[in-house]
C-alpha cells in the first residue's frame, strides 16, 4: 500500500516544527514514531499533504527524574521508557503498561507522545497517565500551556490539543505504594478488549489513597473517582473490590466491535478491574 503523495519536513527544533505547522494549518501533521499515522496514511484514511518529522528535535527526547518529579520528552520511545531504570524506580506502572503495548518492533518506534496525543481510545498510555494524574505540555508559537491528562480527552481522536500545538512533554510525580496495569487482549499486538490501571497506597492495612482508570471501554479513557472512593479506608477486602468494580463499570460505555458484544466487554472489564485492584493492593 502506498500513501498519497506528501511533502516531508524535518525541522531541527521546536520553533521550526511550529512554524511549518502554522504555515500549513490543517494540511500538516507531525510524525512521531509513525506506527499509528503511517498505517492510516497507507490505508488513505489520513491525508497529510505536509508531514513534519520530529525525529531530529533533541529537546523532545529524554527522561529526567529529579526530586520526585518525572519529565518524559514526547519523542521518547516505549522501548526507551521500558529500558530506563530511573523511571522504573520512580513510576513502575509505566514499564508494566509499556510492555503490554503492541510488540517489540512497534515499541522501538512508537513514542509516548504519539500514544497520548493521538486520542485513540485503544491506546494504553492515556488511561495510565490519567491514573498517574500526569500533565501534558503543549507548545504553539504564542507560548506554552499545561493540561492535565484527566481533562485532555474529549472523544475518539478529539483532544484538548489545538491544531497549531505540539505536545512536547509529559510531567508526573513519582509514585509510592502498589500499582498494576491489567490488560485483556486477543493476541500480542492487539488493542485492549479491556484494560485497567490502578495505584494504591496503604497505611495501617487500609487503603489511604487510590486511583483507577480504564482503557478502550469508552470513546475516551475513563478515570473513575467513584471506584477509588469505594476503596478508600477499606482493607481492600472482597466487598470493597466488588464495590469498586461496580462503581467503575457504571462509568464506562463500551461499544460492540470485533472484540465482542457489549455484554462480553462489561464481563471482561469487571474481571480485569478486580485483578488490577488486587495486584496493586498486593504490592502496596
Amino acid at each position, binding site marked *: 500500500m502506498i500513501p498519497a503523495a506528501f*511533502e516531508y519536513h524535518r525541522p531541527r527544533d521546536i520553533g521550526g516544527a511550529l512554524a511549518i505547522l502554522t504555515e500549513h494549518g490543517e494540511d500538516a501533521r507531525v510524525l512521531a514514531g509513525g*506506527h499509528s499515522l503511517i*498505517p492510516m496514511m*497507507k490505508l488513505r484514511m489520513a491525508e497529510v499533504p505536509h508531514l513534519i*518529522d520530529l525525529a531530529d528535535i533533541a529537546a523532545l527526547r529524554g527522561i529526567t527524574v529529579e526530586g520526585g518529579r518525572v519529565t518524559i520528552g514526547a519523542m521518547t520511545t516505549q522501548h526507551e521508557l521500558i529500558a530506563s531504570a530511573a523511571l522504573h524506580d520512580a513510576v513502575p506502572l509505566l514499564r508494566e503498561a509499556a510492555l503490554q503495548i503492541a510488540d*517489540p518492533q512497534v515499541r522501538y518506534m512508537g513514542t509516548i507522545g504519539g500514544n497520548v496525543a493521538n486520542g485513540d481510545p485503544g491506546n494504553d498510555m492515556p488511561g495510565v497517565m490519567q491514573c498517574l494524574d500526569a500533565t501534558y505540555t503543549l507548545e504553539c508559537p504564542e507560548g506554552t500551556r499545561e493540561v492535565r491528562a484527566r481533562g485532555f480527552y474529549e472523544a475518539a481522536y478529539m483532544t484538548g490539543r489545538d491544531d497549531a500545538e505540539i505536545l512536547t512533554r509529559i510531567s508526573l510525580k513519582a509514585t509510592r505504594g502498589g500499582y498494576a496495569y491489567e490488560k485483556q487482549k486477543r493476541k500480542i499486538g492487539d488493542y485492549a478488549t479491556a484494560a485497567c490501571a490502578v495505584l494504591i497506597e496503604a497505611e495501617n492495612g487500609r487503603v489511604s489513597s487510590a486511583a483507577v482508570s480504564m482503557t478502550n471501554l469508552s470513546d475516551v479513557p475513563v478515570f473513575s473517582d467513584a471506584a477509588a472512593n469505594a476503596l478508600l479506608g477499606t482493607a481492600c477486602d472482597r466487598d470493597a473490590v466488588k464495590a469498586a468494580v461496580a462503581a467503575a463499570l457504571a462509568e464506562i460505555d463500551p461499544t460492540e466491535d470485533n472484540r465482542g458484544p457489549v455484554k462480553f466487554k462489561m464481563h471482561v472489564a469487571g474481571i480485569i478491574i478486580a485483578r488490577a485492584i488486587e495486584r496493586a493492593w498486593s504490592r502496596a
Partner: protein
Amino acid sequence: MTKHILKMTVNGETHEVLAEPRELLVYVLREKMGMKGAHVGCDTSHCGACTVEIDGKSVKSCTMFAVQAQGANITTIEGLGSPDGLHVLQQSFKEHHGLQCGYCTPGMITRAHRLLQENPNPTEAEVRFGISGNICRCTGYQNIVKAILSAAAEINAAKEAAQ
C-alpha cells in the same frame, strides 16, 4: 512532490537513491537497492516479515518511510550471512527445522539477531516475547524458539572459547 536524495549505509555499504517521501523503506530496499530479503507480508505492521535493523532497533520496514532512514545504518538479512557462509542463526534455523515456506524467516532472523544483541542468554519465555512481533504460519514456533536458543548457546560458547 519533492524527491529526496537518500544516503544510507546498508549492510556496510553506502547507498544513494532518489525517492519520493511516500516511498516506504521496504520498497526502496527491495526495488531500488535490489535487496529482496525483507518481505512484504501483511503490509499493516502486524506480521514482521519486513523486519530490518536500523541503528540498533528492529523495525518493520513497511511502516517507515525511506526518507525517515536518511543517514541511517541498516542491516538486512543479506548482511547477516550468505548461502556459502550462513550466520549462526541461519545455520541453527536450518538444523532445527525453524522454517518451512521461509517467507517469515528473514524477519524472524533479523529480529532474533537484535534480541540476542540485547539479551545474549534469553530464557525460552524471553525468546517467545522477543519474537512476538513476528508471525509464522508454518512452524507453530516451537522449532524457531529452539533454533534461537541453540544459536544463543552456540554464540556464547564461541565467545567463552575466544576468551
